[in-house]
């Protein structure tokens, strides 16, 4: 077994990732306080609202930055399959791996490279979170924030309820995603390997046969 180090994530990508991680966790926590103030009465409601709004701005700025960076650097291609047929086949293989092979110590079915870091399941999940859930959550959040200034449209009683419900759905979804995401980081070569990679940017590349390990 030969080892060599692959530079997987640029500093910008790492800063973007951890900013996003931190702000999403803060938003989930402060949002929960706003959602159930008495349950978390040890945190003042108005402080939670302020924190939620401020961190949301941070997340929004980060998202815009990230999107711009991914587009300019071309990394956005990571989120889209190159060939649909291959994608579906690999998707199946990856699902089979998570559902069975991983218990048997089977090798990762899809090779991970700096150019192709996501396996098809990751790709689908991340694409839907980054380009579906996150924009939806940001949009409903911003809409709720702007509602007072557009009382006839966004602020209309019916609209604000719908926005709030969508925002709540999004929040629960993010909660589930974060859990799954954190768990999947443990499916690398070692339990901590993927997290270390996201901090340092370097991934220890391990060769078995002609397949590569893949993280979540």
């Amino acid at each position: 077994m030969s080892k060599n180090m692959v530079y997987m994530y640029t500093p910008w990508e790492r800063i973007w990732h951890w900013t996003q991680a931190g702000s999403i966790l803060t938003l989930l926590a402060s949002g929960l306080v706003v959602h159930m103030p008495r349950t978390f009465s040890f945190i003042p409601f108005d402080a939670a609202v302020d924190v939620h709004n401020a961190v949301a701005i941070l997340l929004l700025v980060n998202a815009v930055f990230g999107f711009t960076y991914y587009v300019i650097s071309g990394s956005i291609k990571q989120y889209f399959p190159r060939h649909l047929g291959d994608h579906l086949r690999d998707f199946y293989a990856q699902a089979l791996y998570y559902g069975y092979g991983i218990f048997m110590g089977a090798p990762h079915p899809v090779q991970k490279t700096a150019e192709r870091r996501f396996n098809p399941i990751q790709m689908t999940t991340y694409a839907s979170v980054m380009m579906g859930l996150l924009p939806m959550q940001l949009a409903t959040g911003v809409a709720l924030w702007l509602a007072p200034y557009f009382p006839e449209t966004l602020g209309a009683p019916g609209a604000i309820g719908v926005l709030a419900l969508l925002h709540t759905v999004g929040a629960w979804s993010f909660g589930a995603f974060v859990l799954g995401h954190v768990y999947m980081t443990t499916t690398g070569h070692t339990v901590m390997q993927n997290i270390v990679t996201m901090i340092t940017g370097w991934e220890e590349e391990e060769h078995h046969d002609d397949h590569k390990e893949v993280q979540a």
Partner: protein
Amino acid sequence: MIALLLATGALAGMHPPVTLLGADWLPVVETGAPVSTAATCGQCHDAAWIAGHSYHSAMDFDRQVEAGTAPSGRPWDLGTGPGTRWSPLLDEVVPGMDAATLQERLGPYLVGGGSISPDMEMNCFLCHTPSPDNAARVEDIQGGHPEWALTATLQGLGLVHHTPPDQVGVEVTGEGEGTLTTGIWSYNLDRFSPEGAVDLQLGQPTSENCGVCHGTVHSGNDALLLDFGGRGTRSAGRVFSPQRIASSSLNVAGKEALGRAWDVHAERMLECTDCHYSLNHPAYYQESDDTRPAYLRFDGRKLALSDYLYRPSHDFAKGYSAQGHLAEGRDGSMRACADCHDASATHEWLPYADQHFAALACESCHIPEVYSPALSSVDLSLVTAAGEPVVHWRGVEGIPTDPASLVTGWRPVLLPRVDRPGARPKLTPHNLITSVSWIAGEPAKPIDSLALSEALLQGQGYHPDVLKALDADGSGSLSEGELVLDTEAKVSAVQARLTAAGFVNPTLHTEVEAFGIHHGVTGSGYATKECTTCHAEDGRTGVGFLLAAALPPGMTPALVGDSNVLLDGEVTRTDDGAVIYQSNLFRSGFYLFGQDRLSLLDIFGLLTVVGSVFGLAGHGGLRYLGALKRRKRS
């Protein structure tokens, strides 16, 4: 200057002495006849025009409708005002009564001059003199002397006295030409000039004048006594006084901390008429934004003061009424909070100020609590031994009229209210008064408390049939706890008694009526500022509002049909039989962070998260087992 005097009520000292005239336009001190305001006031003011432009005279009697078509939806209502629209708060006035009964029962609440009671001229003295004798007025209306009611009012000024009974109707030849026949009232001649003129101290109505009928009005430093005879105090706990609650003589719980005045507008020296002004008052009236040209802030073409004094409109500016279509044509004619106050200048601290302003009436935060008891339910399914409806109060421990009772205060229920058709509902504080009554006859009408007393009471106590069904402890009288029809058997027993008393097909009816709370306002110091007052699981709109401690089995009160309030929450019963209103503001399009949530959604979300945790833990466990197995094998 005159405008100023008009505006300040300083006219009180300006009105010249008046020669009191009878209906024959002769001075009453010469004829002994009752005073006529049409003649007396008509000397200078257009009395007929005034009576014709006065809601207090008309009371919507001019807008009666066919039975069954009233906006209230009650088949027995014939209109929208008192006398044509039934109210459990004045249950003995049932629409469609004969004129004499109507005058006797509604008369005390009428100022006269309308089509309702032709015998009663408009009583200018009641509202324009400093100390009208309302008790004497009511006594004459109910005692069959409505023509003397005006004269009786003047007893408050010391101008008249009751004629000794043996001297009533005596003919006295006067010093002049005429012959004086003494009526039931005699004039205190020493108070009149030789020509019959007298200073009535006439002026703009003070708040105290309004308080004679509308509720507790109080000024000065003397002890404040709640006047539950006034409808506003009874239905909404209305107290209009500049006095600090802490300095009040009332037994209000925790009052040391209540350095606020009963009403900030009273504290700031506003009188009732400053908001409820005459609709052609040149200093106050302003055309509404709806009809005023957009380029014109102020229209200088006001009524001349002399014209106003000749024909002052007695239709007064009003807001919107939560119950009924009362005086509908004048709805919203009053200046609302925002017409005088610039809220944006004082609410910089409030996050989402515009959203709050759009969703909440100012009163919602500025009337956080009411410190005077108000009715919570009126039960006309039974009567007390005194023949009165069984009433329950909120905000007090004990009887509200007993000064020793502890006034605990109560939080109004915030209900979405649509003042103008098509407008967005705003949360506005209300009281909800639930009533139960018997409906009987053909056409069906409520059985009022007088008729009910005749059927259910006998001699000094209850009818034996009633006692048999209700007197659980066999004491021969009914205690407070026994005065409720809480079982089918009791309902049937009273129903049978009513049928036996001649009522056709008596059935129980229950309804709830909303009363808006717009007085008792407080300034910034005591207004609601804490977010979690509303934005919390147990926020104001999340907790139930007691409707009635008990209702007959199976009955759920419905909102009377003509309210502009949305009562779209649930009416539920607790295990001990109390009936609670639970708001559901989401249905009216409100979403309160911290309070509103779809529990289904949250349960689903929580299940997803918990499911993820378990699923991932299971997956991880299997991975661990697999790794163990592999290690063993190798």
